[in-house]
């Protein structure tokens, strides 16, 4: 019998339809690039993602990283062994060591220099501070100390003040710093420069001045040692005080029994006498009549 299905006829070799399409696909530049770059990228990315998907692996990775980091940071070259403080007296140096509780030796990576600098600069006695790690493992702290220019009396004690009006430290007694002038009163710190100028122009009166008082946050009073008080105007206080000093030099005004010299009106300086002096004055004027 003749076969129902014919034998496949002999054919010339030719690519199959799918083979032909495959080859054309492989000749497409975009597809080739995808295959050469995209697929390896995908495989590597997939492997990495699969490996890190497990918690233990991630932890291992983090531990290894931290370990290596600390190994490098703990090397001898990076260790800080002591602190050196420049420009501070003993007391301030002690304060600085108190506010910077660093346990040496420590790696310089663990030091937050900026924060430490701010801590030091926040001390009242410090005007400016620089911190750096010097070669050789030394933490160098350079400070500029505030210089006290006056003693400032407040209701609960005596304090030193620098030229900017910043309180530096407490002192126990006025006698601790007899070299510095004394100022007091509300708002005295804000007008510190004027108050100090009064001391400058005092001349011979300087020895008798007990202090200057800011009155009502606007004008100065000068207190002398026997309780005499010189009331100065709001503006031109220094000039008015110079007038008083001059009067004293010429007429020995303040040697007399005067309680108060009121210079608040420039045109009309006023004196207040003590009671006895007042009585004496009345008596003499009556006798003269």
């Amino acid at each position, binding site marked *: 019998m003749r076969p129902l299905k014919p034998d496949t006829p002999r054919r*010339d070799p*030719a690519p199959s339809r799918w083979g032909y399409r495959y080859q054309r696909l492989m*000749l497409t530049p975009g597809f080739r690039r995808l295959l050469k770059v995209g697929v390896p990228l995908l495989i590597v990315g997939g492997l990495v993602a699969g490996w890190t998907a497990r918690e233990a692996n991630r932890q291992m990775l983090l531990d290894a990283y931290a370990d290596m980091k600390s190994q490098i940071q703990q090397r001898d070259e990076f260790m800080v062994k002591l602190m050196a403080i420049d420009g501070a007296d003993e007391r301030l140096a002690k304060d600085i060591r108190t506010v910077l509780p660093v346990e040496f030796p420590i790696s310089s990576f663990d030091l937050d220099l900026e924060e430490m600098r701010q801590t030091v600069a926040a001390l009242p006695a410090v005007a400016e501070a620089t911190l750096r790690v010097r070669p050789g493992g030394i933490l160098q702290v350079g400070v500029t100390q505030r210089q006290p220019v006056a003693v400032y009396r407040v209701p609960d004690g005596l304090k030193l003040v620098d030229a900017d009006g910043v309180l530096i430290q407490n002192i126990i007694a006025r006698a601790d710093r007899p070299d510095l002038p004394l100022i007091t009163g509300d708002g005295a710190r804000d007008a510190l420069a004027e108050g100090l100028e009064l001391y400058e122009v005092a001349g011979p009166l300087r020895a008798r001045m007990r202090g200057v008082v800011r009155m009502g946050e606007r004008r100065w009073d000068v207190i002398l040692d026997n309780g005499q008080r010189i009331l100065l105007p709001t503006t031109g206080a220094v000039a008015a005080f110079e007038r008083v000093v001059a009067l004293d030099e010429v007429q020995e005004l303040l040697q007399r029994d005067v309680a108060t010299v009121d210079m608040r009106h420039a045109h009309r300086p006023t004196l207040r006498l003590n009671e006895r002096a007042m009585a004496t004055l009345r008596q003499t004027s009556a006798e003269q009549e």
Partner: protein
Amino acid sequence: MRDLYQSQRAMRNMRQAAMQRGVVAILDVGSSKIACLVLRFDGPEQFGEADGVGSMAGQSSFRVIGAATTRSRGVRFGEVNAMAETERAIRTAVQAAQKMANVRVDHVIACLSGGRPRSYGLDGQVEVAGQVVTEGDIGRVLAECEVPDIGEGREVLHAQPINFALDHRSGLADPRGQIGQTLATDMHLMTVEASTIENLLYCIKRCDLELAGLASSAYAAGISSLVEDEQELGAACIDMGGGSTGLSIFMRKHMIYSDCVRMGGDHVTSDISMGLQVAPAMAERIKTFYGGVLATGMDDREMIEIGSDTGDWEHDRRTVSRAELIGIMRPRVEEILEEVRLRLDAAGFEYLPSQQIVLTGGASQIPGLDGLASKILGQQVRLGRPLRVQGLPQAATGSAFSAAVGLSLFAAHPQDEWWDFDIPAEKYPARSLKRAVRWFRENW
């Protein structure tokens, strides 16, 4: 005609896209072989074709980067006979050429030799709209040509304006910008059977390729194997293929006539096969090794072994003299040439100023063919080989590849065809939006 116009325009656009991509494939679907060339368009003259013909006659703009040939099994008389076989053969050729070029091609320009081509000469006449002839006038005069009855199931393959006349001044190559009143044109229309084209299109589509152009192989062979003065003065190119022999007559660089004889080298082979009682493959081998058309005294003494493998010793050891072989081949070749002569006479070839005849194609390699042809076709006969183009492999420079090479030139510089010009507005159907747009553009 409207469909054809649109589809040919689409093909032109496809060609433009292929040019932009820079790679296009050339597919010569013949009866005995299918050749595929891959062209790359990135030459120095890609953008500089201002004065018509560049150096190397304009072929330096492309380079052949892939070439492949395969035996064609499903094609007879230049027409697709077995669809699947043809598709497989096209696939083989395209794949090999792609592999050689190492680039993927998506656009293909194909040629076909069969389909019973017929030529028509058309003429049209129109009054010039303004003072000077514009491109719109040319479009109008082309649309004005009276289309003959091309028959049922036939399709226009080429429609080339070959001559323009302006007020009794004929022979204008380019009438644009000239002043005149009456513009007339002659157009060469070539039709083939629609089913042939459709089959070929289907095969190409099955290979995931897009058609960017279609040409007649006789025309393509004429472009590549006729030299410039022959094209100018008048010549006929006879492309002797395996299953059909195409002829195209050129005059003033335009094809003015084309026809096809449905006989070719395969018929010679089958004559040998029948006459000597050998297998067709053996007959082909004998033809290519010992074939000829002019017998001499020496040929009586030259014996050819025509072995076969029947097992019969006597039968397998037969010999024939070369004279006998020539005696078998010559009548068939003569018949083909006589037929060509008839077609040429019908076309009025003898009235051309120059009557050069160029024989090309695979079957023109029979030794002594030029001698025989000059007895039948006239004295001015020569054998033609395709023009040398850049990058063409040595194996593809023979006369069998003249159609493929010609198609490459066609791809690089296609001739103006009817569909390259815009249809005038009045030819659009009434109430068409396109018509309104065109009217607006022309009158504003």
